[in-house]
């Protein structure tokens, strides 16, 4: 099947054809590793996950998917600076070398991010490369030199800036996003990584070193400019180095259209003489309970916050992927509960296909329609709501008990393929549940009570008693789980 995608560059849905028959090359703007990923970040990574799975499973392409790690920018430097309040004591003593501090902080949050991806069902094996920006400084410097040589960059007070006015003489600046060029002032420079469309200015490619900040040596136009890269140049250099330009699809959240992606397009064209990507695809924002997610509203959630509340990561994944990626996603506890129930309905159906008496009806036609409807909905700009609707319609029309000895394996084969994309179900018989003996349950409760009243000696004795019966207790913030000891 052929995929059609909404292309922000052309503002329309277009049929997708890879530039290179051998494989589809996708670049996703990854996380800045200065904190735990929040729900909005995860939504931005679930979108390319569904995209690359669809390209592989439905369209039959090989996919090279690159997701970068931004481990050098304003925020990572701010939080790793000596004396920063955000320095986690678990990181140990800070070094006098700012590069060491930067590495400690970003390595910690990178690992946490990788854990979050795994938890939310994004397979590491599907991501071909997760390059760190600091491993590509030389590529960024080469690109900046190219841009300078081509006349679109200038040096000022030790930093290098992109000359937007000069670029606009020849090229369109504002291809992804309507930029407020009325207020553009030629020669005004902006050093911040993020800025609004009302502040279109000459953006920074290379930032002059400041006291106690990490820096790299850099020579351009025979000038020594110790410093560090601007945020936007990172993706241009890594995309070029790892995928070659132009590559097929660039993804990111809508908030990255400007300035990040707009500047990326200008840099790559000015420095490499190439377009960046043929498709630019953006997922919409996430809101929580109808409001923008913000610490000040008290509705700011990381994945671990939700897991601590007892939520299942597969329910979180399903709730996010079964909505249209291009719509604002309103994350609500009620919505998550609804998604959870719906997901479990499918899981129950799958379990039922492994058990009970077989039916006699022939549902081959419905199965064929499900396959057709599900995958064609996905190929229509990843219309997951319509795809999931096709699955539920099939389940409603053809209860598992009605499937014959031919239909059940056919359904299991199909749901296996569907799950290769949705990724939230277990295609296997229902696991056997060991009944936990009553006395173990009682001991576990006594231990929990002892722990709650801070009688840790008693709690420890009870834990040993439980262990002697072949069980272990796994505590979480508000409850505990009894597990069979392996």
């Amino acid at each position, binding site marked *: 099947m052929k995929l059609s995608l909404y292309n922000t560059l052309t503002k329309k849905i277009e049929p997708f054809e890879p530039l290179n028959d051998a494989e589809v090359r996708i670049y996703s703007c990854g996380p800045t590793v200065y904190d735990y990923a929040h729900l909005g970040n995860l939504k931005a990574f679930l979108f390319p996950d569904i995209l690359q799975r669809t390209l592989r499973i439905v369209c039959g392409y090989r996919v090279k998917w690159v997701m970068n790690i931004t481990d050098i920018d304003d925020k990572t430097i701010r939080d790793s600076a000596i004396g920063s309040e955000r320095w986690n004591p678990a990181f140990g003593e800070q070094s006098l070398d700012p590069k060491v501090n930067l590495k400690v902080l970003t390595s910690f949050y990178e690992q946490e991010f990788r854990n979050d991806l795994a938890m939310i069902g994004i397979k590491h094996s599907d991501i071909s490369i997760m390059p760190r920006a600091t491993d590509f400084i030389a590529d960024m410097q080469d690109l900046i030199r190219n841009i300078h040589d081509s006349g679109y960059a200038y040096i000022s007070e030790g930093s290098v800036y992109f000359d937007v006015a000069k670029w606009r003489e020849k090229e369109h600046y504002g291809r992804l996003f309507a930029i407020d060029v009325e207020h553009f002032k030629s020669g005004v420079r902006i050093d911040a990584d993020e800025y609004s469309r009302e502040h279109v200015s000459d953006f920074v490619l290379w930032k002059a070193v400041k006291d106690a900040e990490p820096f790299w040596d850099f020579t351009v136009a025979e000038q020594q400019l110790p410093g560090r890269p601007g945020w936007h140049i990172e993706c241009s250099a890594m995309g070029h180095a790892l995928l070659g330009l132009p590559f097929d699809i660039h993804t990111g959240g809508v908030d990255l259209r400007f300035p990040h992606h707009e500047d990326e397009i200008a840099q790559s064209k000015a420095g490499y003489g190439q377009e960046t990507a043929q498709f630019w695809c953006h997922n*919409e924002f996430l809101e929580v309970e109808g409001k923008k997610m913000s610490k000040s509203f008290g509705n700011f959630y990381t994945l671990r916050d939700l897991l601590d509340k007892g939520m299942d990561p597969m329910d979180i994944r399903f709730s996010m992927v079964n909505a*249209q990626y291009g719509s604002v996603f309103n994350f609500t506890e009620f919505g998550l509960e609804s998604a959870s129930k719906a997901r479990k*309905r499918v899981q129950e159906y799958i379990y039922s296909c492994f058990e009970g008496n077989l039916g006699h009806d022939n549902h081959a036609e419905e199965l064929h329609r499900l396959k057709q409807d599900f995958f064609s909905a996905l190929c229509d700009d990843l219309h997951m709501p319509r795809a999931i609707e096709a699955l539920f319609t099939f389940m409603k029309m053809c209860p598992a008990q009605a499937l014959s000895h031919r239909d059940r394996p056919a359904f299991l084969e199909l749901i296996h393929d569907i799950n290769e994309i949705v990724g939230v179900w277990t295609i296997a018989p229902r696991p056997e549940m060991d009944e936990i003996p009553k006395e173990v349950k009682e001991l576990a409760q006594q231990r929990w009570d002892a722990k709650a009243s801070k009688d840790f000696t008693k709690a420890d004795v009870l834990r040993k008693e439980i262990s002697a019966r072949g069980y272990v207790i796994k505590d979480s913030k508000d409850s505990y789980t009894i597990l069979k000891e392996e």
Partner: protein
Amino acid sequence: MNSIGIIGYGALGASLAHVLRNAGLLSWIYVKNEDRRLQAQSLSVPILNSIDALPVNDCSIILAVPDSSIYEIAQQVHTLYAGKGCHALIHCSGSLGIDVLKGKDTSIKLIAMHPFQTIASYTDLPNTPWGIDCDASDLAEVSRLIESINGIPHTLSSRVKANKSLYHATAVASSNLLQMLIALTTAMADEAGIPSELFLPSIQTTTLKRAHDSLNNKQSVLHDLTGPLIRCDIATIQANREAIRHIPGLDAVYVSLCKAAIPQLKAMQKLTDFETDILMNALNIQVFKE
């Protein structure tokens, strides 16, 4: 109540003035607005333009004024009539009890009576049920007053009085919101290119008739529900939502009404647990690009 004065000449005040005058009960009317005072001249009763000018005699006074003004005007009446024989003070708000009428003259009877209907003209009043909240000893008198204008008196139970806000919201939902919904469907028909005057009357008439029949049969109006929700037809629901996305706020209305109906349909065993779960999931997600 042989003599009644009315304060206020809005839609309800004017309608009551008309029918009470015809019943021979209207003594005077207080009209603040000059244009409306001209309209009221046809009643041929004294038209007053100041609260201080109200005749102090043995009359009952109906406050046909906005809810927000009732308390203040009631206090003015108490001051003006203290010990001078005002028989009863009546307001016509569906959302307020009688406490709002209390004042220093404790001999005045306090009565709340309101039509179960939005009143635009006196022709809306005949056969309209009226909810009554008053002291039990005054019930018969209030009922007679309502019957004298061809209304149907209904004494509000203590449960209704305790849930007056919900009770009032029910009336608003049943009248105003229904009107708004019809206005929306008219806009939808126009956008779709089908003449609304041709397309909608038979649908709406049949729907309202079914609704009234179900009320008389003490059966939920949802019992006869047809359409994609009851069929658990998610594809059509999604298509409907896509189609109405250009009309501001309508998707939220569509989703909210469906979500509100689903638990009732489930309780009536019109939807299975499975259907309930997948419908709720489908209604909780966005199905179209912004």
